[in-house]
């Protein structure tokens, strides 16, 4: 069939629809690749968390699987020394800017960082990097939920859900570099923008940055 391709992931032969991204094909076949920012429905991935690296035969460096389309005859390895090293460093970097306190976090046991740690054999601890000190404002204005930026990993899931599912246009990123943060329209408290119940963004957040208050 012309709109199907056959590829090999970790020595397993897999059939996939043409145009699909490697990350989703692997996940659907129960092959785990760490990821935070990928959105299946989004044709142009952000490719910003930099955790979904894999090796593809014939490419000189690991590539992000969320932004790579499957190809006929592609030979993929989801682990290698280089991949593991990048994932470890990327993960440690994210943790160095994360309020790491699982026991008191509303996302405990449902957090993607915990999943990644478990699946990739990484520690949920600060290791090589000194934690970055931050001073964020908590926005707990909505009745049901709150935004605690000290846990945000800048994955952009909430922004996408806000635009594409809630169709609200309330959330976005602002500032450059290390100061990049998720913010609301005009930096207003979310409640003032009418955010009280839809909570698409809360459901999208893979960590405990946007959370339901009752869980906290």
């Amino acid at each position, binding site marked *: 069939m012309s709109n199907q391709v056959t590829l090999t992931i970790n020595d397993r032969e897999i059939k996939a629809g043409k145009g699909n991204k490697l990350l989703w094909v692997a996940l659907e076949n129960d092959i785990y690749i760490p990821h935070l920012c990928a959105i299946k429905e989004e044709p142009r*991935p952000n490719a*910003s968390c930099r955790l979904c690296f894999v090796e593809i035969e014939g490419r000189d*460096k690991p590539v992000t699987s969320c932004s790579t389309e499957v190809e006929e005859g592609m030979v993929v390895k989801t682990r290698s020394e280089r991949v593991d090293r990048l994932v470890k460093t990327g993960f440690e970097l994210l943790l160095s800017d994360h309020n790491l306190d699982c026991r008191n976090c509303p996302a405990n046991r449902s957090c993607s960082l915990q999943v990644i740690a478990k699946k990739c054999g990484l520690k949920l601890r600060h290791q090589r990097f000194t934690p970055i000190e931050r001073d964020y404002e908590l926005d707990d204005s909505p009745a049901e939920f709150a935004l605690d930026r000290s846990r945000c990993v800048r994955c952009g899931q909430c922004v996408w859900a806000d635009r594409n599912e809630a169709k609200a246009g309330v959330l976005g990123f602002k500032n450059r570099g290390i100061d*990049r943060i998720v913010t609301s329209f005009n930096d207003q408290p979310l409640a003032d923008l009418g955010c009280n119940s839809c909570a698409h963004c809360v459901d999208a957040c893979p960590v405990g940055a946007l959370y339901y208050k009752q869980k906290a």
Partner: protein
Amino acid sequence: MGTVNPQEQYKQLQNKAEDYAQARQEKPRILIGTATCGRAAGAMQVKENFLHELDKRNIEADVIEVGCIGHCYAEPLAIIEKPGFPAVCYGYLDEGLVNRLVEDFLAGDDPSYEFALAALERNDVFPTFEDFPRGIHEEKLILENCGLINFQHIENYIGSEGYSALALALSREPAKVLEEVKKANLRGRGGAGFPAGIKWEACAGAKEDEKFVICNADEGDPGAFMDRSILESDPHRVLEGMILCGFAIGAKKGYLYIRAEYPLAVKHVQEAIEQARENNILGDGILGTDFDFDLEVFQGSGAFICGEATALVNSMEGKMGLPESRPPRLVQAGLRGKPTVLNNVKTFAYVPRIVKEGADWFKSIGTPESPGTAVFSLVGKINGTGLVEVPMGTTLRQLIEEVGDGLPEGREFKAVQIGGPSGGCLPESALDVPIDFDSLHDAGAIMGSGGLVVMDQDDCMVAVARYFLEFTQHESCGKCTFCRLGTKHLLDILTNITKGEGDRETLQLLDELSEDIKQGSLCNLGRTAPNPVLTTLRYFRDEYEAHIEEGRCPALVCRDLILYYIKPKKCSKLCNVCVGSCPTEAIYTRDDGLKAIEQEKCVKCDNCRKACPPEYDAVIKLSPPVLPEEKGARSK
């Protein structure tokens, strides 16, 4: 094709240009370099001085503003063309010198060669720039008109055969232009060196009605100014290159993305576009053919990252200027989703001569893998600062010692930083590396924007790496993990080292993290940001070790690792200038009449060291910051 032969149309333009030139032949001409570099040195004042002096003496002469003449070290500069004399370039102009030149040369007949830098044409009396070591190496392909012709008139460009490549190309097939550019192996001058021909071909092959040509003139590297100089001095050359590209790939519209901080470049390009339209070189039916193409300036007021290809396109579309992951490449889906060729100012500037003189001519200059020339701005501890253009393959040593005339006296070469903030620092042992894309890359540096900073014994390599990291960390867009957080940690670690904090593991972490940022980042800002760290670690590891193991900064730069000390043996009881120079009153007179510094009060401003008269030269910096034992010194 239209009814009129483009070559004939072009001939008419040339005739017009000739009449124009004739009309201004008999009078002497004074060309003043008034690009931003000249202006900063007072060129506009010099122009006023000339006008005033000429007027006072009733001498008829044209005073004309031209672009960057290239010898920035001697700014303000002027070229005087007086019938009967070779054109001569004068530097270091001020009011007094202008008076003399007008008096002796323009009113009288003495060219005052003692004040001249060089002649511009061969003659029997005075050497030209080519006769100096710098000139022997220099080969000007894209800077050839810089500072020589008056950019405000298209006639001057046409008078030196400008737009003849366009006329030639239009009388042939578009594929011919493409073929020449591809065969010439013209590599992109925006930094990465990707072959322009391959980009153009991919775009030409795309089956879309609408395509775009974009010139990247965002030039955000600190200290880089060659793109600006070319646009200010010789804008038509860039326009011609872009029109040729549009013809080759089948585009009808192009944009020049110029940073808004370059108002003069914007103005000159806009004027050039106007003139080109008036002369049927832009617009519908160019030179009588059925090829339509127009250009527009887009003023970018964004951050450094907006120079990155995908971020630039986003910013032109009114979105946040953030990079995107590729594919799709711009040639597949660029501006407004249409196939787009994006090239640097210099890349486009080479195109007219390649089309006119052929790929083989271009390949006869430079090296086989990097044909043509490289443009550098020489700065730092070097005599001949300024813009230079040399064939690829010239060694760094030739560039520094001969073209740049070496280091000022008493300065000892330590390193050359090449390629801007994402480039690398190379040591003496790497000076015989030929300048080309691949050799520089192998040495750990990059061609980048062509910035070249010469450093000496007073430059601390850790501080230099830290300085560049501070820039890239500040300019990171923050989108991806490795660059946003990785550069922050790199900077923090480097800052600690400049304070003497760290151990061997710190250096290993620097190394590992740098490699991972290079591999893991989304765009080339992150992928190249660690270069200054990696090269200094590779070539100047001993300096890092001195900082962390001995608490010593060998270059005596890092503030936390130095102290100021007045050598009693050298200090004079008769002098006390240092006392007054100190802003915090840290200097006191000891019981024996000599001066000493109260360390707790010292803010390390360096004033006392500068103030101490050379005959005493008693103030020194010490690292590690430990006071020598002194007999009989009073503690305070």
